[in-house]
């Protein structure tokens, strides 16, 4: 009950703060537009204009991922810099509740990014949207969001762990575009990359998403893809719980909660 209140309030406050912070607009609007634009120019150059969905939806996915990744990476770090991490650790509400609220707010921004990209796409390429199979598309979208949420919950304590949060965040941005198949099918990647992509839960839900938008080489196997995506998400959540626990014990042992 009270945990929900904390999550809701954190979500609200963070949303308000992020909306007041220009970098969020940049990530939300410009980055997806740039990637979407590059995608459009490339896909329309060759004989592949049938696959424009990869540009229109892909730009949005790139934006969603970047917003989630960067915010999650800095969520705990920001509390540390503000000196509030100690207060959070010392209060009766679990730190994870606060982080869940913060992640929910960045997912909302990410969603706005996806929506903006889709809206632009819809104006210029309405035919892409006629092909969409609405129900599997919506379910796959929701599961993708859920997977991103779970990954964020892993990233947040992980980045608080190392002092190299920023560099790692930078380093993890593009690999996800590749492994998740955000802008082209994972199948075109080298064989040895495939198992890696398989471990990245969003690759399954994104595959389903594109299949529902008419971009699938084979007959879509939604239950399998959704199931694998969900299984990955569950693993991430368990991993996150463990990491939060470890973070707290280590902080209590080393006394370095308040230190950068």
């Amino acid at each position, binding site marked *: 009950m009270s945990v929900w209140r904390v999550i809701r309030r954190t979500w609200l406050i963070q949303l308000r703060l992020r909306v007041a912070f220009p970098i969020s607009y940049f990530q939300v609007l410009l980055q997806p537009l740039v990637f979407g634009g590059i995608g459009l120019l490339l896909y329309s150059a060759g004989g592949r204009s049938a696959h424009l969905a990869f540009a229109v939806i892909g730009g949005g996915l790139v934006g969603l991922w970047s917003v989630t990744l960067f915010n999650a990476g800095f969520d705990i770090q920001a509390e540390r810099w503000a000196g509030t991490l100690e*207060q959070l650790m*010392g*209060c009766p509400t679990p730190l994870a509740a606060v982080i869940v609220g913060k992640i929910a707010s960045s997912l909302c921004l990410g969603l706005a990014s996806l929506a903006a990209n889709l809206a632009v796409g819809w104006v210029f390429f309405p035919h892409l949207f006629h092909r969409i199979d609405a129900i599997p598309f919506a379910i796959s979208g929701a599961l993708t969001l859920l997977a991103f949420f779970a990954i964020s919950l892993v990233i947040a304590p992980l980045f608080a762990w190392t002092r190299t949060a920023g560099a790692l965040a930078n380093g993890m941005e593009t690999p996800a575009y590749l492994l998740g198949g955000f802008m082209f099918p994972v199948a075109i990647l080298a064989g040895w990359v495939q198992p890696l992509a398989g471990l990245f839960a969003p690759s399954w839900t994104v595959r389903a998403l594109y299949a529902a938008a008419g971009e699938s080489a084979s007959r879509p196997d939604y239950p399998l893809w959704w199931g694998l995506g969900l299984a990955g998400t569950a693993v991430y959540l368990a991993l996150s719980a463990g990491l939060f626990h470890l973070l707290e014990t280590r902080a*209590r042992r080393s006394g370095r909660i308040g230190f950068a």
Partner: protein
Amino acid sequence: MSVAAVELRALRKVYRHRHGWGRGSAETVALESVDLDVPPGELFGLLGPNGAGKTTVVKICTTLLLPTAGTARVLGEDVSQAGRQLRQRIGFVFGGERGLYWRLSGYDNLRYFGDLYRLPPDRARRRIDELVQLVGLEGRIHDRVERYSRGMKQRLHLARGLLHDPELLFLDEPTIGLDPVGARDLRQLVRGLADRGTTVFLTTHAMLEAEAICDRIAVVHRGRIIAAGAPDVVRRQGADLGVVEFEAVGIDDRLVQRLRQLPGVEAVQVVAGELTHRVTVQCPDPASLVLQLGPCLDGALAVGLRVREPTLEDAYIRLVAEPAP
């Protein structure tokens, strides 16, 4: 019988820090072995110089830090095992300006911490109004914290620490960085809290502060308690000594060293003033020390010499003085 608010037994804390990749590690013994009892209802002051281990004690008691050995029981619960329930019953305020959300208003800060301390919204609202009055932030509570002065932030911190009506409040150097007036106001606030039944555990390195408001104090030095009791009692630990005090010009380290080595001298303190240094020497027989001063000062000029009874500050200085080599 009531449980002790704080009960520390042979409490030990060793910090380990790694220097970086493959560069080994080092240890700092912050608490050697600390025994301490604070009964409920008391305003207790933990005194000590920089690095003595005050903050470490407070962090262990507030569940932010795990002890290396020994036990710490707070409100009857062992802090190593205790979690949420204990945190709900204690409050803590660390001195300084950090630890608030600067981009939110003071009110939003309090409301958010009210949520974190699981207060039902309507109770939180009433409590916030009360506390804002108490700490005197009425006019400014809806301003963003970044526009607060240091003293206002400190008072907001105090309100934050009191939101959930803790049985026991920890204050780590609550007056740090405040001007004398601000510090006095804050002390009065804290005294008032204690008078109304909250147990308060505060740390400070300012002797006067402890003397002014604490029921009982303990002095921690190099991770050990070296004196404890009512301020009077601690002061009397130096009662067998007298104090010789004078202003001097031309004091240097060598001279201070010589003073320290005079027979019977227990502690020497030198405080730099604008033109002169104020030198305080503690010893059992001030009269004979005065006679030895002349040759010892060796050309340095001493004025305003007087002999007086030790204060609590003198007692403290003697307690934490470097042992003579």
